[in-house]
C-alpha cells in the first residue's frame, strides 16, 4: 500500500474518531453547562459527542439488523447522520460562541499551575503514552475476539450483519443477544469508511481512541470531585493509571478489559460508559446541592450514555439502569428531591426498550 493511501486512511479514521465527535459535542456547549467553559471544553465535546454518535449508530444499526439491511446500508446511513449531527453541533457551538463572546477552542489552561503540578501532568501524559505504545506493540490473545472481531470482518467483507457464523462461516439467523449490542458493527463501520482492515481497526485503532477516552472521562470526574482544588487532578489521574496498570488481579476486572480487550463492547461498557455515568451523577448531585436545574442538554447526554451502554452489551441495559437507579435514589434521599427520579426514569427508556426487545425476541 502506498504511503499516500495509508495517510488518507489514517486521516479518515481521525475524522471519524475525533473530528466528528468533537463537532457533535457542540450540542452540549450551552450557557448553563460549566463543563464546557475553560479547559474542559474540547474534552467534554469529544466525549459527549461520541456518546451521541454511538446512540445514533445503535438506533440505526439495531433497526437495520431487524430489517435485514445490508451492512453498507447501515454504514452509509450512519455516515450521513453523523455528518449532519456534526454540522449541526458545530453550528450550535458557533452560535454559542458568538452569543457568549467566547474565544475559540480552549485547550488546557495550565498557566495558573505551579511548576510541581506541571511535573504531575507530564508524568500522567507519559504513562498514558506508554499505554498507547503498548496497545500497538503488544497483543492480547483473547478467545472472544474469534467472535467479535470476526463479526466485524464478516460485515465488511460479506456486507451482512450476524447472518454468518463468525467461528466457521456457515449461514445462521440473527442472534438477538449480539444483534441488540452491535458494537462490532461500529468497528466494521470504521473499517469500511476508512478502508483499513477490520482486524487492524479492532486491535490497533480502537484502543488508541478508547484508552484516552477513558482517562478523559476520569479527568472530567476529577474536575467534579476536586472542584476548586484542580491542582489535585493530575495526582488523581496518575494513581488511576497506576491502578489500571496493576489492575490485572483477576481475569474479570474492568481494568483487564480496558487494557487487554478494549475492542470488545463489554470493555467499553466497563471502562467508558460506567465511568461516564459516575461523572454525570456527580454533575447531577452538584446541581441538586446548588438547587439548580440540570437543563435539557444534561438529560439528553445521560440518555445517550444509557443508549451507548446498550450498544456495548445487552448487559449494559441492566448495569446502566442499576447504577442510575441506585445513585438516583441515594441522591433523592440525601437531598430530599424526589422529583429528580422522574427524568432519571425517562433516561432509562433506551435501556428499557433494549431489555424488552431482548426478552420478547429471544
Amino acid at each position, binding site marked *: 500500500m502506498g504511503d499516500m493511501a495509508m495517510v488518507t486512511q489514517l486521516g479518515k479514521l481521525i475524522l471519524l474518531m475525533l473530528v466528528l465527535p468533537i463537532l457533535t459535542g457542540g450540542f452540549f456547549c450551552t450557557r448553563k453547562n460549566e463543563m464546557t467553559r475553560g479547559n474542559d471544553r474540547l474534552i467534554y465535546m469529544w466525549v459527549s459527542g461520541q456518546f451521541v454518535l454511538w446512540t445514533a449508530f445503535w438506533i440505526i444499526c439495531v433497526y437495520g439488523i431487524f430489517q435485514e439491511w445490508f451492512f453498507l446500508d447501515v454504514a452509509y446511513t450512519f455516515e450521513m447522520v453523523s455528518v449532519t449531527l456534526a454540522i449541526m453541533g458545530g453550528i450550535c457551538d458557533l452560535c454559542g460562541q458568538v452569543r457568549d463572546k467566547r474565544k475559540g477552542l480552549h485547550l488546557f489552561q495550565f498557566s495558573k499551575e505551579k511548576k510541581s503540578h506541571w511535573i504531575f501532568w507530564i508524568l500522567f501524559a507519559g504513562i498514558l503514552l506508554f499505554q498507547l505504545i503498548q496497545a*500497538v506493540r*503488544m*497483543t*492480547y490473545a483473547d*478467545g472472544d*475476539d*474469534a467472535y467479535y472481531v*470476526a463479526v466485524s*470482518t*464478516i460485515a465488511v*467483507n*460479506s456486507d451482512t450483519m450476524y447472518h*454468518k*457464523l*463468525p*467461528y*466457521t*462461516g*456457515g449461514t445462521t439467523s440473527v442472534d438477538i443477544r449480539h444483534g441488540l449490542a452491535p458494537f462490532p458493527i461500529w468497528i466494521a463501520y470504521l473499517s469500511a469508511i476508512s478502508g483499513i482492515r477490520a*482486524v*487492524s481497526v*479492532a*486491535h490497533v485503532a480502537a484502543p488508541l481512541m478508547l484508552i484516552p477516552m477513558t482517562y478523559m472521562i*476520569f479527568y472530567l470526574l476529577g474536575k467534579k*470531585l476536586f472542584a476548586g*482544588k484542580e491542582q489535585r487532578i493530575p*495526582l*488523581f489521574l496518575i*494513581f488511576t493509571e*497506576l*491502578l*489500571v*496498570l*496493576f*489492575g*490485572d*488481579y*483477576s481475569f*474479570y476486572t*474492568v*481494568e*483487564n478489559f480496558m487494557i*487487554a480487550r478494549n475492542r470488545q463492547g463489554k470493555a467499553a461498557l466497563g471502562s467508558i460508559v*460506567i*465511568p461516564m455515568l*459516575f461523572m454525570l*451523577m*456527580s454533575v447531577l*448531585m*452538584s446541581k441538586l446541592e446548588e438547587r439548580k436545574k440540570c437543563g435539557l442538554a444534561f438529560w439528553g447526554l445521560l440518555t445517550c450514555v444509557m443508549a451507548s451502554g446498550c450498544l456495548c452489551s*445487552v448487559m449494559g441495559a*441492566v*448495569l446502566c439502569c*442499576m*447504577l442510575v437507579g*441506585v*445513585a438516583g435514589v*441515594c441522591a433523592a434521599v*440525601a437531598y430530599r428531591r424526589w422529583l429528580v427520579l422522574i427524568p432519571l426514569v425517562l433516561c432509562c427508556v433506551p435501556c428499557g426498550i433494549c431489555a424488552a426487545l431482548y*426478552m420478547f425476541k429471544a
Partner: protein
Amino acid sequence: MSRSVMMFQDYMGTGLIMAWFLLSLVYLFLRENKKQTRILFIYVPVVILLLFFNPVFAQKLSEYLGDEIYYRILWLVPVTPVLAYTIVHICVSLKGKFRMFFVLGAVCVIGLSGSYIYADRFFGKAENLYHIPESVVEICNAIESPGREIQAVFPLNMVQYVRQYSSSVRMPYGREMLMNADWNGWRDAEELCEAMEADVIDASELGQLARMTYCTYIILPQNKKIVGNLSSENYVKYAEIQGYCIYKDTLSNH
C-alpha cells in the same frame, strides 16, 4: 457457599486491592465531608455490593443474563476511582516529606497488591498490525481465492485467528472446539478435529474426513508426524509457510 461469594472471590484475585478498597470506604466514611462524594463513593458502592450478594436479586438477574456474566455487576463498584481519590485525599492532608513518603508508599503498595497487566500470560509482542500470528496471515493470503469462499481445516491453535483476518476462509470447526461447547451444531467435525490433533496423523483418515467436510485445504505443522501419504487421498503439498504445510485437494476446482 453462595455463587455470588464464589464469584466475588474469583473477581478479587488475591483480595489485596479489594481490601484496600474496603479500607478506603471506611476512611472516606470517617473523613469525607462532601455530600456528593459520600453518595457516589460510599453509599452507591455499598448498595451495589449488598444487591450483588442478595440471593434473590442474584437469582433473578442470573435468569435474565446468564450465570457466567453476573460478576459484571461488580464493574459498578468504582474500585479504581475510590482508591485514587482516597490516596489523593490522604496525601493532601499530610505535610512536607511525609507527603512524598506517602505517595511513594502508595505506589509501592499498588504495585505489590495488584498484578501488572502487561505481565499477563496472554499478552505477547504483536507480530504485525493485525495483532494475529504472521503464520495465519500468510497462510490465509496463500489460500484465499478472489470472490469465492474456500473451506480449510487448521490446527486448533490457529482457529481463533483465521476468521478475524479473512472471512472468505471457512472452517469445518472453529473456537467452539476449544470451548467444548455445542455451538450451532458443528460437533460433526469433532472426528476431523481429533484426527488433526492426534500425535501421529493417520493420512488416510484425515484425508477422508477432510473431504467429507468439503475442505479444499489442510494446514498442518511441518514437524507433525504423518503415517501414510496425504497424496493418496488427493491432497498434495501446496506450500510451506512459517513452519506449516498446506495441502490442497487436487479434486477441488478452487
